[in-house]
C-alpha cells in the first residue's frame, strides 16, 4: 500500500496531466459530425505516433547491436505511423476542401 502511495506521490504531476488530458480529449471531440469520423480517427491515429519520441530516445542511447537493431526498427515504424497517418488524413480532407472553395 505504501508503495502505491509513494508511486502516486512521486508521479503526482504526471497523474494530474493524465486526468486533465482525458477530460480534454473527451471535450475536444464530443460534437463531431459523422462526416468527420473517419478523418478524425485517422488524424488521432497520426498523433499517437508521438510514441516515436520514445523510439528516438532509446535509439539515441542504444549501446549494443540488439538495441541498435530494435531501435532502428522502432524509429522506422514510428515514422511510418506519423508520416503515413498525417498524409492519409490530408488526402481525405483535401476532398472536403475542394468542395468548400467551389461554394
Amino acid at each position, binding site marked *: 500500500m505504501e508503495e502505491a502511495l509513494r508511486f502516486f506521490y512521486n508521479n503526482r504531476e*504526471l497523474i494530474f*496531466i493524465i486526468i486533465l*488530458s482525458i477530460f*480534454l480529449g*473527451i471535450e475536444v471531440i464530443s460534437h463531431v459530425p459523422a462526416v468527420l469520423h*473517419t478523418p478524425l480517427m485517422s488524424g*488521432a491515429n497520426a498523433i499517437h505516433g508521438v510514441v516515436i519520441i*520514445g523510439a528516438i530516445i532509446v535509439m539515441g542511447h542504444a549501446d549494443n547491436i540488439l538495441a541498435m537493431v530494435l531501435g532502428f526498427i522502432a524509429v522506422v515504424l514510428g515514422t511510418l505511423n506519423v*508520416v503515413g497517418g498525417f498524409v492519409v488524413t490530408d488526402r481525405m480532407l483535401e476532398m472536403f476542401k475542394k468542395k468548400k472553395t467551389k461554394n
Partner: protein
Amino acid sequence: METFTSQISILEMSYILASVLFVLGLKKLSHPATARNGNLWAAGGMLLAIVFTILFHKKDGAHIGNIPWILAALLIGTVVGWLAAKKVKMTAMPQMVSLFNGMGGACAALISLMEFPHIPEELIAHHGMLNGETFTIMMGLMIGSVSFSGSMIALGKLDDKIGDVKTKLMRYFNLAFLLLLVAMIVFILLMPVKPDMIWIYLFAALALIYGITFVLPIGGADMPVVISLLNSFTGVAAAFGGFLYDNQVMLTGGILVGSSGTILTILMCKAMNRSLLNVIIGAFGGSAAGAAYDGDKTVKEISLSDAAVLLSYSQKVLIVPGYGLAVAQAQHLCHELDDLLTSKGVEVKYGIHPVAGRMPGHMNVLLAEADVPYEKLTEMEDANNEMNNTDVVIVVGANDVVNPAAEDDPASPIYGMPVIKAWEARNVIVMKRSMAKGYAAIENNLFFHPKNRMLFGDAKASMQKLIAEIKNL
C-alpha cells in the same frame, strides 16, 4: 529529472507547444471547415517535438547519439509512409489507417522490450520488481503488442483475406487469455529480482497472440469500431511510454488519442445502436440466426431502359451508396447520373447510413471526392422521414444498411440496428453484382420485396449504361 540547462528548458517549451498544437489540431479536425488545417497543425506539433528531441534531449547527461542512424530510420519511414499514403486508393483508406495504427503499436512494444533491461538495479534492490517503471514497461508492452497484431488481423479482415471465427468457446478462451496476461504482469511485479529476458519475450509473444484471438471472432462488419478501439489502445501505449520517460508530450499526445479515441468508438457503436461490449463479445452475422429464408422467394430484374424511364419521370430519387460503390469506383458516375437527372428536374439526394462502407463517414469522403455537393447528402433519419414521398431509391452496392430484417426479424443478428427504410419508397432499384450476401453475411429480404427490382452487374458498368440510356430517351 535532469538538472537545469537552457537546452532542457527549451526542449520542455517545445513539448508544451507541441501539446497545444495537438489539442488545437484535434479541435479543428472536428469541424469540416477547419479540419485540414487541424491536421497540419498537429503534424507541425509532431515535427517540432521530433526535431527538438534529437537536438536537445539528454538522459543522464548524455545527448542523443547514433544520430546518423536515427536520421536514416526517419528517412526510410518518411519515404515509405509518404508513398504508401499517397498511392493508396480511396477505397483502401481504412486498411491504411489500420496498418499505420499497427506500426505505432509495434513501436511502443519495441520501446518496452528495449527498456526492460534498463530498469535500474538500485530500484530493484530496494523494492524488488514492484515499481512504477516495471509496471509502465509491462503495460506498454502488452497494449502495444495487442494493438499491433490486432490491427494486422483487422487489416486482413477489411481486405476479406481473413474470415470470421465464430465460436462461443473463443469468448471464454479470450477471457482466460486476458487473465493469464494480467497474472503474468502481477507475477513479474512480485519477483524480488529481475527475471530473465526470456520471460519478457514470452509475455510479448502471448500478447501478440491475444491481439489475434481478440479480433478474430469479431465480425468483419464491425472492423471500423475495432480499428477505432485499437487506435485508442495505441494512444494509451504511447502514454505509458511518456510515463516511463517522464516525457510530457508523449503523455499528452497518447492520452488525448486514448480518450478521444474511446469516445469516437462509443459514438460509432451508438450509430449502430449497439454497445461496445456487444460488438466485442457478441459475434456479428452468420450463426444459425436469420435462417428463416425459404427458397420460394423470387427476385425481379429490371431492364436498363425500364430503369432509365422510371428515373427520368420521377420527382424524387434517393441514392443509397454502400461499399460496392467504393469497390467499383463508381462515385464519379454516380454524380454524373445525379447531374443528368437534376437537369431533367428530378430531385436527387443521397441517403448516407452512418456505417455504410467500411468506416464511418466513408461514403461522405468518397462522394466529396466526386464533387457531390454537401447539401445533397442526407443523414439516415432525414432520409427515412422523406421516404414516403420518394419515388425511387437506388441502392448502389449497399446491403446490410437497407436490410428490413433489422426492423422485423428479432432473430437476425442485425436486429435493432437503425437502417435506411428503402422499402417505404414507391420503387427500389438495387444495383448489385450478384445475389451474394453483404458484409455481415446475412440474407437481405429487401431483394425479394415486391417493390424492389434488381439491376445486376458491376456498379460502374451498370451506372455507365444507365446514364447512356437516360441520355437516349
